[in-house]
């Protein structure tokens, strides 16, 4: 059952401070409204995960690990590997996160990342098939929010993509219908790099990649994403509040620009060769 969250009372004062700054194109941490926070990407830190990435965006820190198993394909997609995305808002990341199974926020995060990967056609799932109709690679992409200073969406997707792009999957030979590890490894081909940008609206103004103090006082927020071809690959209004329809055009345009910026940063940091896109 979705439960309406409490609104911090002191938030009102902070809102008017942030809004006043915004009218002057400024923010509390010195950024311009459309500036993202610094992004750091580290990959391959963990040896028991087939892929891993630690990504920070300002003080928000996300750790994603990938475990690979051999499983059965879905009946309606017998020649495709599968993946699932889980996200845990770890209680050590914020006093506002509770221990226990993912609540609606964790589930929303997982599903937004899942849709971005799936609809962005990041993986060629047919290349993750081992024996048609019987055995395929099953990827578990598990996202952990370690430190939460606002906007866990964008760095979560970055870390999922970085972990995927640097993952090492064991190769198998099919011998008499059975699978045998060859001892070799391969990195899954990445066909597309969709990223998202979280957009916060206050009054008739907007800012990107809110840090926590900003996030708390937004009128409304959106997560929007795009791939390298300029396709919109993700839209999620993720908070209460109304988005003025007339703001949408400029929001879409800045999202295209800023996801490009993230992509360039990503390609600098992560050794990924983009496969031909579908």
């Amino acid at each position, binding site marked *: *059952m*979705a*439960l*309406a969250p*409490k*609104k911090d*009372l002191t938030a009102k004062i902070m809102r008017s401070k942030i809004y006043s700054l915004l009218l002057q194109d400024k923010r509390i941490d010195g950024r311009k409204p459309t500036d993202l926070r610094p992004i750091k990407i580290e990959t391959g830190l963990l040896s028991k995960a087939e892929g891993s990435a630690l990504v920070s965006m300002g003080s928000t820190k996300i750790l994603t690990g990938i475990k690979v198993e051999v499983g059965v394909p879905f009946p309606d997609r017998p020649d495709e590997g599968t993946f699932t995305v889980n996200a845990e808002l770890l209680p050590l990341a914020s006093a506002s996160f509770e221990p226990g199974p993912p609540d*609606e*926020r964790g*589930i*929303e995060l*997982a*599903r937004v990342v899942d*849709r971005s990967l799936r*609809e*962005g056609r990041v993986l060629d799932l047919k290349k993750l098939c081992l024996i048609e109709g019987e055995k395929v690679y099953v990827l578990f992409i598990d996202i952990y929010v370690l430190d939460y200073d606002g906007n866990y969406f964008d760095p979560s997707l970055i870390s999922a993509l970085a972990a995927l792009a640097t993952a090492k999957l064991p190769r198998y030979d099919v011998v008499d219908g059975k699978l045998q590890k060859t001892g070799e490894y391969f990195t899954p081909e990445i066909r597309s790099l969709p990223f998202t940008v979280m957009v916060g609206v206050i009054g008739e103004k907007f800012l990107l990649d809110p840090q926590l103090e900003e996030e708390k006082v937004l009128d409304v927020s*959106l997560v929007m994403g*795009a*791939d390298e071809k*300029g*396709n*919109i*690959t*993700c*839209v*999620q*209004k*993720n*908070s*209460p*509040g*109304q*988005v*003025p*329809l*007339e703001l*949408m*055009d400029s929001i*879409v*345009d800045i999202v*295209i620009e800023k996801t490009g910026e993230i992509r360039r940063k990503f390609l600098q940091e992560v050794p990924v060769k983009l496969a031909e896109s579908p």
Partner: protein
Amino acid sequence: MSRPERLIDENGRRVDGRRADELRPIRMEVGVLDKSDGSAYVEFGGTKVIAAVFGPREAHPRHLALPDRAILNCRYHMTSFSVEERKPLGMTRREIELSKVIREALETVAFLEEFPRAAIDVYVEVVQADGGTRTAGLTAASLALADAGIPMADLIAGVAVGKVDGQLVLDLCDLEDKYGEADMPVAMAPRFNSIVMLQLNGRMTVEEFKRGLALAKKGIDEIYRLQREALKKKFSKISPEEV
């Protein structure tokens, strides 16, 4: 349910004979349940949803109550037999996410500040799913809130737009949702010309996205008109003596 060869034929007609910008037959009825404080039934073609509202009531447990406004709880739920493959009992991750986005849309228009320390419960039950259940559910929920007498800044109307065989279409049915390229549920508060729910499943170009919003707006204006009619019909049933 297998994929038809084409989702749009040479005459521009869709699998169910509609034009690209045509809504399915819509039925709305307000006050369909007896024991809730407000309720509504909404049908968009094969999609059938019921919504009910309870409250405002005292919030419990107490520490959840807010000093300055009511909390609004929302559950979007599907019957096990509303879909092709039986839905397991209990809430799926999808249902939990949609409960969140529907609640966040409703919070936007309900005057919650009028009921400090109270709670309002909104239940959306999908009886049959044929595309657009969350927007139909939200449309029904806003009618149920109005029926319950909760003051609102506006009604909310929603519809999905999608991309099917490369073309933008209004009010996706299940087949189009499943085999199309994109499904974008949109809900608005028409009086404010603002978006209160927006999601995307699939890919669109920037241009398609912008046109999609405009197409949604067109559908939403019609749905909004039907909502007001349904409310009028309900309240005209109440004879003057009752008031």
